[in-house]
């Protein structure tokens, strides 16, 4: 509530009504994945590898099967053979074979915690007891956890089917270096050689977990005729359906996935871990099967985002104009290829005009959990080093860091990361707003430093389907397939009500199962308010057209002589000029027409626009301990237009907090056996309430002309700038560059000692 209300251009868009699912969520009534129970349901549990890398020579399940109460046991051999296949899943792409093997190992266990077998039993306790009776014959193999280990000469090769892609010549020997991705433009070597100032430095970020508070969970039920149901919390019920169907060789129409409320995702719930396993158990047992991960399993076997090591060289002319940049980075991809190397490379410099550039990204596979998308996947890891270098450039040039960025900021018409001219983007407006914010010029206290950092995210469109219908009393139902992670039912109802001219409360939104509405891509890529919102508005417009036609029929007037305004048809011409019919009056006569007014709209919107942000961070350093604390934080972002400002601010605040955690406290610790040592919230330190200050937000509104209300995606951008904003602030407070995250007290203290 700390931003001004939207000017009253709209009745509803820009206001802050209570979300329609709110009461369920503050009273404990909402049904999340662990809360759903199917009649006759039994309980699954998963046996996980105790080794970071091991060949599975055999699995003996007889004792487990004999335990009273056990109804089914499966191993990787129960999974059908699937080809290595890149499939379009709406989330960019995915490799079905890898997804299947990540659900359950077959030939080899690739990380500590990799699933190797599963049991379903009449109780969770019996299922877990049965796991202990499964005998797995492992041949333990040497493992690699870090990039250096994975790339060392003679390192054990994780996949004999992975050859470095993206090289000029395809290699003939398999490698842990799974891909190279290069973006090149101009002659950056010459540009740097001719630059007045060049900053060069190396940086690192660690893999971090998405840390949604709800662990992964699902219930699957398979019937003998091949029809099946899944109840799961995820970012996309269609994603669950399509992946499960592909992995198990089932027909998509035979699997009905009901989306339960989702307890956070942040990208980490855009793939399957449990659903195919639960489905196979259900097929064997003939009963619905629930599997819930424990937090320990979540940390060991799901997520994380890749960590990245990067070296940046960036040059500028004496007036601060950027001349060229050379960036080389390596991302730690986990057990399977698919880390976010191309978005990392594409976003590194996407917010600046850089005439000559070469960005080279490498992906390396390791014996750690396979990476998953995490909010603006790939961008924070490369924007962090670039922004730190921009700060050093500003210092070297004696320029204000915002002025330096303004001088080089991308503007509408510049070539964007997709090689097309940028549309109505607002990075300059964000920089101006940051410069004008009182935070930017507020005095700092002792041991405090300030950092500012920018960044961007491409955003996405993708397919969405909406059904909008008018009940006989004139109230309106909107059905979508987009899971509501953070208030999208409210924004859908607001856009529908705004378009129809109705009160917010007259529109109710349902998130339907996959058999009840057409396809929508997952709630991911900051796409839902943009793409599903557009489908809502288009459907509302079709319904208005139908209602006008009906009113015209009732009046005997031409449809062109009927105007829709304030939720009613108004007759402009003829005998009935001046009369009006409310939506309820028209809808109530459905029987005199061809039934209810409704519209189903499917859209795939390519006209999304990237989002840009600028964050200001003040940190305070305890020089005795090296402990850093964020004492003031401001997030400025071009949001297009905020439909529900509270939930837009919430995205900015939540993304900032996640970025602060990445910068200061979050990292995995592995022991020499390759086992995660901190697989719990006590030792994996995400920010708690007492770690953070209030997070001020400034919503800059540069509307997207490609959306009826100007929406741009807002969810992902806010995690892009914080890593650098925090690190720059900390470096200024410490008087020494701090370039290796997380900035834990021991690391900062050591840097202070080396400075002295």
């Amino acid at each position, binding site marked *: 509530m700390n931003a001004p209300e939207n000017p009253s251009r709209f009745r509803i868009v820009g206001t802050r009504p209570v979300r329609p699912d709110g009461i369920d969520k503050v009273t404990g009534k909402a049904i999340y994945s662990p809360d759903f129970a199917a009649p006759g349901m039994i309980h699954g549990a998963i046996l996980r590898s105790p080794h970071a890398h091991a060949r599975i020579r055999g699995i003996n399940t007889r004792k487990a099967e004999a335990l009273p109460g056990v109804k089914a046991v499966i191993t990787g051999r129960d999974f059908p053979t699937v080809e290595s296949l890149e499939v379009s899943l709406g989330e*960019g792409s995915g490799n079905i074979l890898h997804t299947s093997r990540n659900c359950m190992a077959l030939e080899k266990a690739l990380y500590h915690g990799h699933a190797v077998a599963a049991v379903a039993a009449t109780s969770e306790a019996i299922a877990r007891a049965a796991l202990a009776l499964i005998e797995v014959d492992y041949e333990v193999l040497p493992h690699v956890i870090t990039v250096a280990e994975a790339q060392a000469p003679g390192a054990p090769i994780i996949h004999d089917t992975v050859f470095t892609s*993206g090289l000029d010549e395809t290699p003939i020997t398999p490698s842990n270096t799974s891909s190279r991705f290069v973006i090149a433009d101009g002659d950056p070597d010459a540009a740097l050689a001719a630059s007045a100032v060049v900053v060069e430095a190396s940086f690192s970020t660690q893999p971090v977990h998405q840390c949604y508070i709800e662990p992964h969970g699902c219930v699957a039920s398979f019937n003998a005729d091949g029809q099946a149901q899944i109840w799961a919390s995820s970012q996309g019920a269609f994603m669950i359906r399509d992946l499960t169907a592909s992995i198990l060789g089932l027909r998509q129409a035979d699997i009905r996935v009901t989306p339960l409320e989702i307890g956070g995702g942040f990208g980490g719930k855009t793939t399957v871990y449990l659903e195919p396993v639960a489905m196979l158990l259900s097929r064997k047992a003939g009963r619905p099967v629930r599997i819930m991960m424990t937090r320990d399993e979540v940390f060991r076997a799901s997520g994380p985002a890749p960590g990245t090591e990067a070296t940046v060289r960036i040059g500028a002319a004496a007036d601060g104009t950027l001349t060229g940049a050379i960036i080389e980075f390596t991302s730690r991809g986990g057990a399977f290829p698919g880390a976010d190397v191309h978005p990392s490379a594409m976003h590194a410099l996407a917010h600046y005009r850089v005439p000559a550039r070469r960005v080279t990204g490498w992906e390396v596979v390791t014996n750690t959990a396979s990476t998953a998308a995490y909010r603006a996947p790939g961008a924070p890891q490369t924007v962090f080093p670039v922004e730190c270098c921009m700060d050093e450039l500003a210092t070297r040039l004696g320029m204000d860091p915002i002025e330096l960025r303004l001088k080089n900021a991308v503007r509408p018409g510049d070539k964007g990361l997709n090689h097309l001219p940028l549309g109505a983007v607002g990075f300059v407006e964000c920089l101006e707003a940051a410069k004008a914010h009182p935070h930017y010029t507020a005095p700092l206290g002792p041991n405090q430093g300030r950092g500012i950092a920018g960044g961007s995210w*491409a955003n*996405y469109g993708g397919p969405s389907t909406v059904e909008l219908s008018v009940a006989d009393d004139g109230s309106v139902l909107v059905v979508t397939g987009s899971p509501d992670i953070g208030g999208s039912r409210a924004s859908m109802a607001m856009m529908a009500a705004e378009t129809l001219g109705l009160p917010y409360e007259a529109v109710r939104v349902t998130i339907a199962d996959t058999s009840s509405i057409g396809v929508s891509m997952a709630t991911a890529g900051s796409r839902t308010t943009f793409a599903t919102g557009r489908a809502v508005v288009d459907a509302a417009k079709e319904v208005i057209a139908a209602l006008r036609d009906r009113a015209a029929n009732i009046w005997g007037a031409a449809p062109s002589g009927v105007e829709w305004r304030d939720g009613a048809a108004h007759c402009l011409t003829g005998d009935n000029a001046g009369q009006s019919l409310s939506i309820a009056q028209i809808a109530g006569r459905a029987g005199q027409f061809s039934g209810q007014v409704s519209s189903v709209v499917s859209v795939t919107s*390519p006209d999304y626009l990237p989002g840009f942000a600028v964050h200001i961070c003040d940190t305070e350093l305890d020089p005795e301990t090296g402990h850093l604390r964020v004492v003031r934080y401001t997030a400025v972002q071009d949001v297009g237009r905020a439909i529900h400002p509270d939930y837009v601010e919430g995205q900015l605040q939540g993304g900032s907090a996640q970025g602060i955690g990445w910068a200061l406290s979050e990292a995995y610790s592995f022991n020499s056996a390759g086992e995660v040592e901190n697989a719990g919230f006590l030792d994996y330190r995400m920010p708690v309430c007492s770690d953070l200050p209030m997070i001020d937000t400034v919503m800059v509104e540069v509307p997207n002309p490609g959306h009826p209300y100007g929406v741009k995606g807002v969810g*992902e951008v806010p995690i892009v700038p914080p890593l650098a904003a925090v690190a720059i602030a900390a470096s200024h407070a410490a008087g020494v560059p701090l370039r290796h995250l997380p900035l834990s007290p021991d690391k900062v203290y050591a840097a202070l000692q080396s400075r002295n």
Partner: protein
Amino acid sequence: MARVVLTPPFGTRFFGGRDHLDIDAGNVFALVRALDGLAPGFADEAGSRAAIAVNGTAITAWDTRLNADSEVLFVLRIAGG
């Protein structure tokens, strides 16, 4: 002949590092068929991983018409988390 602009990794992986080609095609389907004929596997890759723009405008429908001076851009899709 429509001008095909290939960004990484499409050019490197399928066309020996070339960043553009000129192809005669009436729409994007025909263009991708032609490219797949030159470099088998391109159609699958384009279908699963490419975002496509025609004359500077992102498109999703492959039946978009092309003419002799059309420019068709293939770039890796970024969907996000």
